[in-house]
């Protein structure tokens, strides 16, 4: 075959970084010829299948100070080299960021989650990336560092298309930060795959704010229905500032389904994605509302 997944028949120079500065220097020097290696669960797959041929591979899991989770009043901050499993296992994530927790738990094998990172999931920029919808609905911000500067980009502006982000070749994603969630917040994530281990046929995240029986604000994001994970403002608008009801959930779910333009691929069909988008969005909304303390 054109591939041999038994080996990694690639030529590259291996660079093991111990500090962020080191990574940034190399990135500045090698630009597009270099690739960051975190968990490797996307990068090595792409190198084995010939989709990526970096000349330099910069390993960042040994960088001091990139592996952390900090949860406080300022919100949640996750270092780029932190494994998915550690994020999933963090008490604050489980209790305060249900959509992110559920998204990570839905991903891959435990072994992959022991290796992979959120940063890798985002930079890989699959339209089906499971951590993207939750981060979109939480208004997460990504910290992108250059050798001589740093910028903060909202996740919503990060994705450009399949495999494409606004990350410059010289930039390193160093931190994912999520604003604190107010007490009346509830969030959820749902995904449909072919079997229990799969990239999503479709996934959805919801985060909403409850005040009494009203939904004061709402964020909805879908994955695997467009060239990139997307917010669905049409559906959000249906709920924002309204008294919550089953009919309203249904209307929002309809609006969500009407707003997407999925395609058919190996995992599912356009028609199916359209049909079930309504179902899983409705369910995700109900779950989030309940978590926010609401009843329907």
């Amino acid at each position: 075959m054109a591939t041999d997944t038994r080996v990694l028949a690639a030529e590259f120079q291996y660079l093991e970084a111990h500090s962020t500065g080191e990574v940034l220097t190399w990135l500045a020097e090698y630009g597009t010829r270099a690739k960051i290696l975190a968990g490797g669960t996307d990068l090595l797959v792409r190198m084995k299948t010939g989709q990526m041929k970096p000349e330099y591979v910069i390993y960042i899991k040994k960088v001091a100070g990139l592996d952390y989770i900090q949860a406080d009043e300022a919100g949640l901050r996750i270092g780029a080299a932190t494994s998915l499993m550690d994020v999933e296992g963090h008490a604050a994530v489980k209790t305060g960021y249900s959509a992110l927790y559920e998204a990570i738990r839905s991903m891959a094998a435990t072994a992959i989650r022991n290796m992979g990172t959120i940063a890798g999931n985002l930079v890989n920029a699959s339209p089906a990336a499971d951590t993207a919808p939750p981060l979109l609905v939480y208004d997460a911000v990504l910290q992108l560092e250059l050798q001589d500067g740093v910028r903060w980009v909202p996740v919503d502006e990060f994705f450009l298309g399949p495999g494409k982000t606004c990350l410059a070749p010289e930039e390193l994603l160093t931190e994912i930060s999520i604003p604190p969630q107010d007490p009346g917040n509830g969030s959820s994530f749902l995904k449909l795959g072919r079997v229990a281990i799969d990239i999503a046929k479709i996934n959805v995240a919801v985060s909403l704010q409850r005040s009494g029986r009203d939904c004061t604000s709402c964020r909805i994001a879908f994955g695997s229905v467009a060239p990139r994970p997307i917010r669905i403002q049409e559906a959000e608008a249906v709920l924002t500032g309204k008294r919550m009801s089953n009919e309203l959930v249904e209307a929002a779910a309809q609006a969500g389904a009407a707003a997407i333009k999925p395609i058919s691929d190996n995992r599912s069909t356009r028609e199916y994605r359209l049909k079930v988008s309504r179902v899983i969005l409705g369910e995700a909304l109900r779950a989030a509302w309940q978590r926010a303390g609401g009843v329907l």
Partner: protein
Amino acid sequence: MESQWLKLRVNGKERQLFVRPNALLLNVLRDELGLMGAKYGCGLGECAACTVLVNGRNMLACLILAVTMEGAEITTVEGMGDYDRLHPLQQSFLDNGAVQCGFCTPGMLLTAQALLEKNPDPSEEEIRDYLRGNLCRCTGYAAIVQAVKEVKHPA
């Protein structure tokens, strides 16, 4: 692309190896160290036949560059137990008929061990969920889940 020295511990023994940066941990374990317990099943992270423990965590050796393992502690199925001193999980797999062709067995055992480290008394759902990335085409998983559930912890 130059080979470089790599120092790590495998099954409790310190090892020094001279490896190329593109060498996969799976192939280094099998070809350099003769540890054939970890198996190639897909090379893409989809089957977990190549599972090893890295510092106690289950990971997939087919997607790991050996050079990144400097200083790591690796456990393969050979390090779990021996024929005259089986690990309780190994014994439980035998007692519960969890082994058919046996090709998935090393990966299953190591993944289960990692689970039990975190959660010594998992429910059936927790076992199924933790093992869901380990494919087995022979058993239908029931005997494997049973074996993990019924493992007798050393007193």
